[in-house]
């Protein structure tokens, strides 16, 4: 193969140069075009303008740049000039390489030969001028800039309906339209207080905020007569014509469904499928108090300033909030209440969807003294019109302790003291323990231990009494039980012997104690069967005892656990170690008594005054036999749906599916019942309603009828409520032999 001649090299260099500089032009023009497009998009101008401008800028830069660098007018001579200028080794003879030998003199030819050699050596190192790196850098920068600016692109671009996208946004998708409807637009205007702009729906099924105004604008492809909209199978509204289209507006506060129906010129009635209207309810505001427990008890020395932090949120906006505080002073029948309405310190104005509100409650300024209590709750209102939603929190209790009064718990308003009779004895045990400790030095060790033990016994009895509330049975001790007769009286003797005399004034109001004692007299048979029975309690689950609520149960359990510890140290003759546990137990018991307190309005039945002259005379002359007769109506719930289910069963068992006129009528009635249910539980049965409608009008063809029936049957079955079971009269035939058998059986029983 012959070696390439210099002209060939020149061609190659020319091409390479054109390619490099062409790329450079492209990068510059793209950078310019991109920048133009992105910048113009920041402005509210038609969407086509930035695009067109960008293309124009690209073309302009490309053309202008190409012209400047003579991209398409590069000649071999220009290259030769460049080479002569930049490569002195060629001795300004590069142009000789382009001239044929016939046109050169001998000296020129000689020079040419030398130049060729040098050129061949130099060729791999020849660098052509270009700035492609710079162009690429600028292009990259423009891309980054474009991305950054795109993030700031405003959303309020004016969009014009183009053939594809905008038509879908403004009108219902043509594919979703029934055959006779050429176009349909649904405009939804939510209430102004929601702050939501008007929108159009792309679907006949609507999901709209509560109270929204919906406008349908429908254009039919044929001349229709009396188009109507039927709302939830109840209300029928005629759609009036307006400049060729049919328009109707209606606002909605409850979910439902609707259907469009019209009469064709041939008097046939046509209707669309069922479409649902789902209402997004305006939720009531929510209030979360962050830093305060529901019950707060303060000592006299505690800080009387309470910081109240609350987060108020609403789905559309809040407008008003207040703190309703009630101060209660005094106790018993002298109790007095004073109500105040407070506002939050921050923020001053209540507006927006989420507010962090704070308030400093100064108990001193409110006049709360030791023994008084403050109850408050937060109330908030949202911006809903006409009737705003209101929410309030639970009542928070702040009590200022009064240590000067004796702790008693008494449920006002109830005639019965429900507290167990030993409730007050924990304090007695504490007092006696403290007294014992004081007298420790003066007492003999034996006596000290005895008294400590008796206190421990009292503590145990107290613990067991409280344990009754948790469903535990009375236990005397662990292990096999010896038969103890008259168990109760023994207990009482022990109490009298070791226990404390306590208040007995209220005993007549006390409820009857529930004595839970083991059945000590277990049968031998039972003991043999289950030897562990002596060691476990065969009683019902304490978890299921429902005397007290869960939080109080937890506290009571904790108190009982602490009482165990208190008893332990008393048994170990260490009352000083027992006292902290006793204090803790007392505190928990007080908390429990506080928790169980509620305030209710005083209600009562005032019976008519008794006629003393008629009392206890045993005169029954006015008492007569009375008769009440009641006939409960046996109306089957969902009778049409039940009939439809049975009809479907009848149809399905046949090999060929045929919907008779009677069946169609049954399905229609079932559809009405189902429509009523759909109103109560929206969205669940719309598809079934649609299928029922199609079945009754014969729109579903043979092949799909079975599937439709199966689906309808399933849906209708799910509608039917599950009733509780009812006792059945058992059936049977009593044969003469049966009677004879029974007679003989009775006779043999009696003989035995």
């Amino acid at each position: 193969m012959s070696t390439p001649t210099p002209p060939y090299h020149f061609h190659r260099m020319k091409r390479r140069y054109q390619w490099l500089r062409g790329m450079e032009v492209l990068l510059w023009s793209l950078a310019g075009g991109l920048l133009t497009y992105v910048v113009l998009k920041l402005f509210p101008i038609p969407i086509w303008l930035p695009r067109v401008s960008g293309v124009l800028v690209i073309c302009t830069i490309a053309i202008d740049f190409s012209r400047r660098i003579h991209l398409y007018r590069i000649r071999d001579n220009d290259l030769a000039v460049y080479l002569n200028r930049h490569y002195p080794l060629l001795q300004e003879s590069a142009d000789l390489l382009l001239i044929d030998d016939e046109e050169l003199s001998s000296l020129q030819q000689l020079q040419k030969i030398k130049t060729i050699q040098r050129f061949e050596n130099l060729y791999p190192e020849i660098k052509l001028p270009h700035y492609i790196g710079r162009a690429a850098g600028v292009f990259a920068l423009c891309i980054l800039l474009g991305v950054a600016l795109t993030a700031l692109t405003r959303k309020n671009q004016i969009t014009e309906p183009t053939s594809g996208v905008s038509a879908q946004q403004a009108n219902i998708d043509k594919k979703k339209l029934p055959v006779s409807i050429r176009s349909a637009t649904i405009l939804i205007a939510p209430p102004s207080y929601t702050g939501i702009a008007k929108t159009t729906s792309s679907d006949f099924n609507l999901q709209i905020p509560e109270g929204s105004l919906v406008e349908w604008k429908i254009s039919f492809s044929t001349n229709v007569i009396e188009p109507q909209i039927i709302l939830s199978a109840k209300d029928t509204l005629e759609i009036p014509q307006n400049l060729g289209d049919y328009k109707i507006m209606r606002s909605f506060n409850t979910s439902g469904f609707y259907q469009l129906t019209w009469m064709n010129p041939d008097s046939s009635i046509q209707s669309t499928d069922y479409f649902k209207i789902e209402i997004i309810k305006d939720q009531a505001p929510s209030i979360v108090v962050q830093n305060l427990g529901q019950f707060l008890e303060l000592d006299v020395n505690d800080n009387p300033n309470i910081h109240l932090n609350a987060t108020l949120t609403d789905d559309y906006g809040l407008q008003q909030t207040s703190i309703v505080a009630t101060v209660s002073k005094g106790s018993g029948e002298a109790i007095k209440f004073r109500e105040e309405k407070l506002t939050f310190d921050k923020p001053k104005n209540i507006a927006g969807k989420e507010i962090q509100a704070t308030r400093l409650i100064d108990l001193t300024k409110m006049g709360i003294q030791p023994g008084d209590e403050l109850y408050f709750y937060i109330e908030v209102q949202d911006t809903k019109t006409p009737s705003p939603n209101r929410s309030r929190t639970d009542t928070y209790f702040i009590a200022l302790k009064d240590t000067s009064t004796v702790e008693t718990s008494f449920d006002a308003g109830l005639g019965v003291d429900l507290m167990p009779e030993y409730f007050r004895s924990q304090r007695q045990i504490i007092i006696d323990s403290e007294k014992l400790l004081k007298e420790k030095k003066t007492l003999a060790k034996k006596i000290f231990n005895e008294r400590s033990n008796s206190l421990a016994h009292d503590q145990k009895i107290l613990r067991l009494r409280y344990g009754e509330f948790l469903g535990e049975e009375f236990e005397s001790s662990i292990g096999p039980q010896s038969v103890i007769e008259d168990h109760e009286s023994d207990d009482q003797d022990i109490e009298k012997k070791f226990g404390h005399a306590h208040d007995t004034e209220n005993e007549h109001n006390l409820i009857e104690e529930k004595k839970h004692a083991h059945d000590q007299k277990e049968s031998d048979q039972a003991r043999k069967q289950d030897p562990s029975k002596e060691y476990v309690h065969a009683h019902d689950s304490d978890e299921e005892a429902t005397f007290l609520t869960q939080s109080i149960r937890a506290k009571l359990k904790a108190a009982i656990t602490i009482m165990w510890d208190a008893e332990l140290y008393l048994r170990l003759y260490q009352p000083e170690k027992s006292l902290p546990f006793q204090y803790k137990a007392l505190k928990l018991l007080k908390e429990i008594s506080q928790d169980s307190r509620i305030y209710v309005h005083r209600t009562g039945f005032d019976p008519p005054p008794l006629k003393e002259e008629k009392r206890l005379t045993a005169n029954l002359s006015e008492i007569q036999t009375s008769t009440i007769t009641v006939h409960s109506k046996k109306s089957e719930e969902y009778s049409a749906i039940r009939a439809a289910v049975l009809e479907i069963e009848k149809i399905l068992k046949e090999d060929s599916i045929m919907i008779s006129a009677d069946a169609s009528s049954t399905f229609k009635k079932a559809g009405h019942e189902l429509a009523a249910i759909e109103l109560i539980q929206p969205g669940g049965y719309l598809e079934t309603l649609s299928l029922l409608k199609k079945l009754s009008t014969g729109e579903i063809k043979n092949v799909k009828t079975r599937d439709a029936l199966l689906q309808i049957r399933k849906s209708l079955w799910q509608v039917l409520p599950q009733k509780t079971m009812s006792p059945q009269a058992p059936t049977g035939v009593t044969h003469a032999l049966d009677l004879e058998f029974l007679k003989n059986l009775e006779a043999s029983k009696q003989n035995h």
Partner: protein
Amino acid sequence: MSFDPVLPLWLIILIGISLTLLFLWQENKKTHRFKGLRMVSVLIMIAAFTLILLKPLHQKEKSSNIILLTKGYSKKQVDSVLLNKVDFSLMHLKNVPPYNNSTPLLSNDLNQRSNEIQTVIGEGIPICDLDKMDNKHFEFVSNTLPEGIVELSIPKLTIANRKNTINGKFNNSQETIRLYLSGPGGKEDSLTLKGKGQHNFKLTFLPKQSGEFIYTLGVQDSVDRYQEDLPIHVSEEQKLKILFLQHYPSFETQTLKSFLARKHHSMVLRHQVSKNDFRYEYINHEPLSLTKITVEVLDDMDLVISDSESLSVLSPLEKQNLENAIQSGLGLLNLSYQAGKSLTNFFPFQTISTKNDTAAIRLHSKSFNFPISKSRVIENSLLIPIQKNKSGVLSGYTFAGAGKIGFQSLQETYTISLAGDSISYSELWTPLIERISRSVAQSSKIKIVPSFPYYEDEPIDLEVISLSESISIKADDVSIPLKEDMLIDNVWRGRTWAGKKGWHKFETSDGSTLHYYVSDTSNWKSLALANQLMENALANSYGKTAKSEIIKVWEPVPPLAFYLLFLFAAAFLWLAPKL
């Protein structure tokens, strides 16, 4: 010796003679060696050919006993049986492929030859054919149980609004299989069976209304999935007539009354206001004179709910009436009882005092605690408990003549109803009330003898117990003749043939009905086969052992010898010229 010619005898002889003459003449013409032998060969060849056409038979002595091959028989099993019973005749049923020269046995001949059938191999004689046989005493060498549902128990009485259970057995040949029960509302219950072999299964469903429904019992394994149509007839709820005799109204009885009233039961309540003054309530019942508890009043009632206080103040005549009514079928439910001598007839239970005064029970997957009477009834063989826990029987009943006397120890059960848990409340009271109540006396009862499934054109045997002397029955408006049992009075039997696929009904002349479903032949194959196997296995107990007799049978002479003779003769004729 006898013949079974393929063609008419004269034709065979004519052909034979013609061919003999022809071949003899041809051989005679030839000048090859062994002429004599060639002639003899011709004669042997033609004779062999003629015998092939004549198919000679020879007589053989055999036992009259039959080994009957039925569908699905295993050849190995047949061979092993034949080893011990060589001289038995081998026969096969229609549509069963023959084996080892077995001869067909038509179903019409089954009865005639039932005495001779000694062994049956395979899936057994179809039940409808088995029924035709007077003597069914044979040894049955059965196939293994088919894969699928091999036992099924559908509840006889399915009532709306309560859980009903289907029990069965599935023969699994795969590792894991899933059974599901689907109803009109979709899937009702499902379970997974793991491991090969037979597994018991239980599926529950809750029908929401009465009527005839086709549920589907589906089987899904790793490869395949199939469904069977399960017909369920859901009966209407029957109403009770209940009499409350109370000293005074209480929350408990009022709540119970309200619960029963919501279910449209008929009730009469009597509360005693003073010695001779009462307060009456009639719910879904016409007013009646209830000053005295008479036989007429009690005969109209299904259940009396009372307490010991009310019962103790009844006059001796009223007590006697009540006792007689219970013996005749009335139910008595004691809500609170105090054991006393005068009430032994109304509370025939032994009690023991306990200190426990609360009881915990589980209802509808929830736990409840109720106060309970301190006297606890002692469990014995006569007591049928309905509710019990670790501490003893909480409610139950015992039989007293045709009636029942029951008790309920739990108190303050109205709290569940007040809490809104009507399901648990009904679950607590419904079993007790309905089991103690008087049985609704039907004058006749229909029973279908063969097990489900029933197929078109197959016989269905009926058994009717009727108190009427002249009972008649119709199957879908077609009268069926009945025959009374010779030994047991009032028991009638009849037979009909199942109609086309779908629901059908038997109805007696006095109004008793029984609904049944005729399945498609493609359904329940495994169950039908399992039933057939079981019936054939049970057949061993019917009839007497087949007597063995020696019979002579004609058997064909094996034609192989004739073929070989023909071959050798023809070969010699061909070879002879070359020798």
